């Protein structure tokens, strides 16, 4: 067995091994190096896997040499490898960015614990992407969620505890729903391997337990991905978590739930069941639209920037689900592309805000007045990312909205085009509030002396900001991978 053949499992095992090593070292510098190395390895392995899958098709790996469907199968296909690259890349970037921010926000004695939990969270998120086993996916989902609760609770004031507890309750309800759904599927098909469930699905299609499983999984995963109106945990969690955690979660956690939803909808249940037997097409469409408008409207009235962009995340999740509800290759392409584009945009925004929090002591609108004068680079980065959130041509956000509009037109739902544009106008308003505070006000007297964030933070954040522009112009990687993954999911030959 060569190393390359072991990559599907190593991508999750190496971060898993890094967690206890970081705990044993009890030294924040060494723990940082270990976890950073593990994230870097995971990113390298993900890129290799992506190339391998693009070249020679899906990779299957039998844990413990028990052949599927009896053993646990790890399966990397176009969709999985795309998410692997996204999650591991963001992890490596956020880690390398976050040291200065961490020093300021978390007591030094807890740093090695932070790195341990970060490695565990990464293990969970990557494991979800590689696993082809329903229960294994649930276990990884819990690994990532449980470590996330603790990471959020590490926030600097006591409100972080309340936010974390809130997320704990909501997340546990979601996990319960997911495991009930998986249990019902196991009841009806007698197997946990996703491909095997799919193969046995025709025999039980449309039966009540299977439809119940579909409903349970939909609600559980919607909770985890903060789909409106199940998003209540998200704004507080993002606002009060340490900056590093906000950046990482905003870029990965909810996105991975979308991945699981795609897997279950299009590979396990199949479109005919999801969209014909249950009216999920209409349900998802309504929730997506409600999220796009309600959450964006709420975002306009926030004064804390982290909270503002957290609500914006809920709104953006609406676009992601809107693409899914079209049930077409173009729609799914839009969903997958927007997962990526929104991840890098929001990741960049929260990283920049982390820099602001470090230099100016907070990210409320009155405090960041005159940001452009004291931190010109950060302010410029925020503007670029804001344009991407709105969907201005030349930024990543435009690409996803372009495909959304295209999918709406293909489906003959031209009125949706107006709604997409309309909700983008709401984004213009909340982004403008940030721009106005940053560029058209003088800095507060006590903050005139604030300086630009340190270079160690500016460079990774700047890379991501550049990424939002790059992926707005050059779409071979994003749209190419997404379109292929979408056509595989829908079973349409290209």
């Amino acid at each position: 067995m060569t190393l390359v053949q072991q990559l599907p499992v190593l991508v999750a095992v190496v971060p898993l091994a890094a967690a206890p090593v970081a705990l044993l070292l009890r030294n924040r510098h060494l723990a940082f190096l270990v976890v950073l190395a593990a994230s870097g390895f995971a990113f390298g392995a993900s890129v290799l896997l992506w190339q391998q899958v693009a070249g020679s098709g899906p990779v299957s790996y039998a844990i413990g040499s028990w052949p599927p469907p009896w053993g646990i199968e790890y399966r990397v296909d176009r969709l999985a490898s795309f998410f692997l690259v996204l999650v591991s890349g963001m992890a490596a970037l956020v880690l390398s960015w976050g040291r200065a921010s961490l020093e300021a926000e978390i007591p030094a004695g807890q740093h090695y614990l932070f790195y341990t939990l970060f490695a565990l969270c990464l293990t969970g998120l990557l494991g979800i992407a590689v696993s082809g086993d329903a229960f294994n996916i649930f276990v990884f989902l819990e690994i990532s969620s449980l470590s996330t609760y603790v990471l959020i609770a590490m926030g600097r004031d006591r409100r972080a505890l309340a936010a974390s507890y809130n997320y704990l309750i909501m997340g546990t309800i979601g996990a319960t729903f997911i495991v009930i759904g998986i249990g019902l599927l196991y009841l009806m098909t007698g197997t946990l391997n996703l491909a095997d469930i799919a193969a046995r699905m025709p025999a039980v299609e449309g039966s009540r337990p299977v439809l119940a499983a579909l409903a349970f999984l939909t609600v559980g995963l919607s909770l985890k991905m903060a789909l409106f109106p199940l998003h209540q945990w998200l704004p507080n969690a993002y606002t009060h978590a340490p900056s590093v955690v906000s950046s990482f979660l905003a870029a990965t956690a909810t996105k991975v739930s979308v991945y699981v939803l795609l897997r279950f909808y299009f590979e396990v249940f199949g479109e005919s069941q999801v969209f014909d037997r249950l009216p999920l097409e209409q349900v998802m469409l309504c929730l997506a639209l409600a999220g796009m408008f309600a959450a964006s409207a709420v975002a306009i009235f926030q004064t804390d920037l982290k909270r503002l962009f957290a609500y914006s995340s809920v709104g953006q999740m609406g676009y992601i689900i809107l693409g899914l509800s079209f049930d077409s290759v173009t729609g799914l392409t839009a969903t997958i592309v927007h997962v990526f584009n929104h991840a890098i945009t929001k990741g960049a925004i929260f990283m920049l805000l982390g820099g602001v929090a470090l230099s100016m002591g907070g990210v409320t609108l009155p405090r960041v007045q005159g940001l452009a004068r004291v931190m010109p680079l950060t302010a410029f980065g925020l503007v670029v990312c804001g344009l991407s959130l709105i969907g201005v041509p030349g930024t990543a956000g435009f690409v996803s909205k372009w495909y959304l509009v295209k999918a709406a037109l293909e489906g003959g739902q031209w009125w949706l085009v107006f709604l997409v544009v309309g909700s983008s106008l709401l984004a213009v308003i909340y982004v403008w509030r940030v721009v106005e505070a940053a560029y058209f006000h003088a800095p507060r007297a006590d903050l005139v002396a604030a300086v630009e964030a340190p270079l160690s933070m500016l460079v990774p954040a700047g890379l991501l900001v550049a990424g939002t522009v790059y992926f707005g112009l050059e779409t071979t990687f994003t749209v190419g991978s997404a379109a292929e993954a979408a056509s595989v999911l829908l079973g349409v030959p290209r």
Partner: protein
Amino acid sequence: MKDDLVLRVVGKLLIPFILLFGLYVLFHGDYGPGGGFQAGVILAAGIIFYALIYSVEEARRVVPEPLVEAMMAVGVLLYVTVGVAGQVLGGNFLDYFVLAADPVAGQLRGILLVECGVAVAVTGVMLKVFYMFAGRGNLDQ
């Protein structure tokens, strides 16, 4: 509760057997009910019993907190090591078939080592949780 003579005597008498029973549950897990998780809980329960009778400080002296944290990590590491050993010996992750010349013996060896890892990690986590709750005070008053 350290003033209660009956408890002290019974505790001193029972705790070694509780710990021994934990090990029995661990090593007998292949043949009967039991396994790493149950063994870990029993081992931790023995220590917690000790802490309840002789005070938490006393228990912290016997099983110090750094040791507990190390156990959590070592347990997971043992599991990962067994998994990776399967890869190094030419199989897949968690491949027990290659751990011994005979595949069945390999399976027995692999699962026992993994269960040992589970037992160590579970004992560590249980004690850590107990110490954290007990550390909030008024248990000893």
